[in-house]
């Protein structure tokens, strides 16, 4: 029972961590809570279901399961990247020099817009997909574990490692770190700020798409409002780990997933969504810089 819940928590946490990375990267560079990021995840999940349905109708899923899953991931990632780019260009770039409140309100507006756009286009009921993937539980250390959960955990660890290496080792990653430290200085030494910001949004959106597709496959259904709650929780994970800090977002995601999974089974499932918010409030009061974040004094 306990071990089972831990695996559930880790799978849930992996999803939160992937979404949290998008929040934390954008916050690191723009100091902006991208409220619409949860909606990108929701769009990714929808595309996962839509593409899977499409591939099943044309018969690809039945014959080449791995290939069709791969194509679903790629397709969803490309689309989410497109949405992320458009979002940045339309709602955030024109407000980069405005006062603090403006981009926040714009972000909330974008989130509401995207939610309702998907609702109007796809209906407000659950979009269901019949399970194609046989999820015969594997017995792991005497506990039945769904192979999909293992898949989710492994895929997200792979993606996160990739991101970590990208940010630490590549030239572009260095440009991103420079931009996060000081946009103006980075611009002076030849970093194309607009490009770096756009790439940040693309990477965040791709990770959110991966999370969305995995959730869609795992539960076999999506709804237009899943991005809202998942978004707040992922943001909580980012704050818990220390906002702007990439390993922190991963750690925060896994911790949050575990707390929620264990809290739901041992304390109360009705109030499962409250745990995340309570953690958020407690962390913000006691340690606003998060677990791994450095203390930042506000600039005047």
């Amino acid at each position, binding site marked *: 029972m306990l071990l089972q819940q831990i695996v559930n928590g880790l799978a849930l946490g992996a999803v939160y961590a992937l979404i949290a990375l998008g929040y*934390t990267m954008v*916050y*690191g*560079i*723009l*100091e*902006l*809570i991208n409220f619409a990021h949860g909606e990108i995840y929701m769009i990714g999940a929808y*595309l996962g279901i*839509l593409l899977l349905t499409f591939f099943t109708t044309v018969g690809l899923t039945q014959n080449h399961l791995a290939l069709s899953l791969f194509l679903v991931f790629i397709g969803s990632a490309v*689309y989410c990247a*497109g949405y992320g780019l*458009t979002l940045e260009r*339309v*709602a955030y770039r024109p*407000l*980069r*020099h*405005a*006062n603090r*409140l403006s*981009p*926040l*309100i*714009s972000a*909330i*507006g*974008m989130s*509401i*817009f995207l939610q*309702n*756009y998907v609702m*109007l*286009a796809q209906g407000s009921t659950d979009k269901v997909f019949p399970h194609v993937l046989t999820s015969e539980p594997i017995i792991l250390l005497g506990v039945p574990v769904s192979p999909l959960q293992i898949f989710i955990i492994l895929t997200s660890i792979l993606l996160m490692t990739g991101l970590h290496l990208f940010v630490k080792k590549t030239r572009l990653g260095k440009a991103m*770190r420079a*931009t*996060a*430290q*000081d946009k*103006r200085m980075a611009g002076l030494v030849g970093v194309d700020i607009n490009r770096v910001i756009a790439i940040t949004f693309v990477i965040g959106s791709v990770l959110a798409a991966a999370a969305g597709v995995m959730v869609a496959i795992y539960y076999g259904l999506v709804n237009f409002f899943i991005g*809202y709650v998942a978004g707040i929780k992922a*943001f909580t994970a980012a704050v818990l780990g220390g*906002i*702007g800090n990439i390993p922190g977002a991963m750690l925060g995601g896994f911790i949050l997933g575990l707390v929620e999974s264990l809290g739901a089974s041992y304390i109360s499932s*009705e*109030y499962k*969504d*409250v745990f995340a*918010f309570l953690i*958020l*409030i407690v962390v*913000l*009061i006691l340690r*606003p810089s998060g677990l791994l*974040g*450095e203390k*930042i004094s*506000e*600039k*005047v």
Partner: protein
Amino acid sequence: MDLNLKFLPLTGLSVWIGLLVLPFVGFRQAALIAAAILFGGLLWSAAIRISRSARRSPRIRMLLDETERFIRTLVARRPAARHPVFLFGIVTGLLIIGPLGMNNYMIDVLTLAGIYIVLALGLNIVVGMAGLLDLGYISFYAIGAYSYALLSTRLGISFWAALPLGGLAAAAFGVVLGVITLRLRGDYLAIVTLGFIQIVHLVLNNWDRVTNGPNGILNIGRPAIGPFVFSQPIHFYYLILAIVSLTILAVNRLSRSRIGRAWIAIREDEVAAQAMGVDTTRLKILAFALGAFWAGIAGVFFAGKFAFVSPESFTFFESVIVLSMVVLGGMGSIPGVVLGALIVVILPEVLREFAGYRMLVFGAALVLMMVFRPQGLIGNPRWRIELRPPGEDLKTQGRSSVNGGADV
């Protein structure tokens, strides 16, 4: 020609958007949306070109000036424009006598608009004056409504006693939220208040013993004076009219007071305000409490009017609706906020057949207002100065401060 140059990026944009929406809406609709963007954009750029070249031509310029002068003299000759007291009299008279000739549906819409005006004015204290983005504002509305619902059904307390009590209960929660969040900066504050509304919603839904869960509380007592019980829509209209007038009066006095000026100072630069001796902690909590107070009053009225409350009325979306009223009308501007509330309530009633697009339009409106007209429809002059994007010389001087220690 300029028009030809605009054609290429517009085609690009419409193809891009068309591709983005394709998997969600299908081929036909995607093509329609793309075409709408292309033609709309072309029309728009053509209209701008024509108006620009027209303004350059001396004859049309003269005509425009002449018209403007004519309108000015016309307005100046009207007694109403010269005497604000006279104008005030006309408006008051219309508000009192006007609804007598309306049907119940129209009166109900106006009453609803009244509730939202009180809510929007309260949120305006927090967001518009003090510059604190509170996304959980509706939770105070819920606290006011549930306070009256419980006081009335459990203890039989009258509406008039509950009105201040509900306001005070909401204000008390406002103080609690204010104390919790006072160390947080703007964007963190937004997300914590978002969490707060979520918690309130969950508690209302699950604490069955007190709130009766999703079924809500029925048979809440209606307001009464002696033997006269408020029952007709028009009765509630006059009641909310009185509450709205009181709110406008109070908020207006507040905005001109020492407290109001201190809030504006905090909004514009918290550190500078603190350095000038403004007690920022106390004033931020006060902003939360006073904003929440009005939401509580609106909540009590809501419960009295409908005699029924349920958690469904108090969601994050309601918060967004009230926020869009404040943003649309103009943050910090009292006439602007009143206008914003009227537009947001009455427009969807007029455009009934597009009811499904309501939230879509509000979301888009929030983005568009921020990008093109951040000061709102009737902006507060002070906001106008602050929200204007700084000029080129200012742009290079900072505002781009990014935290140094953050590691991406």
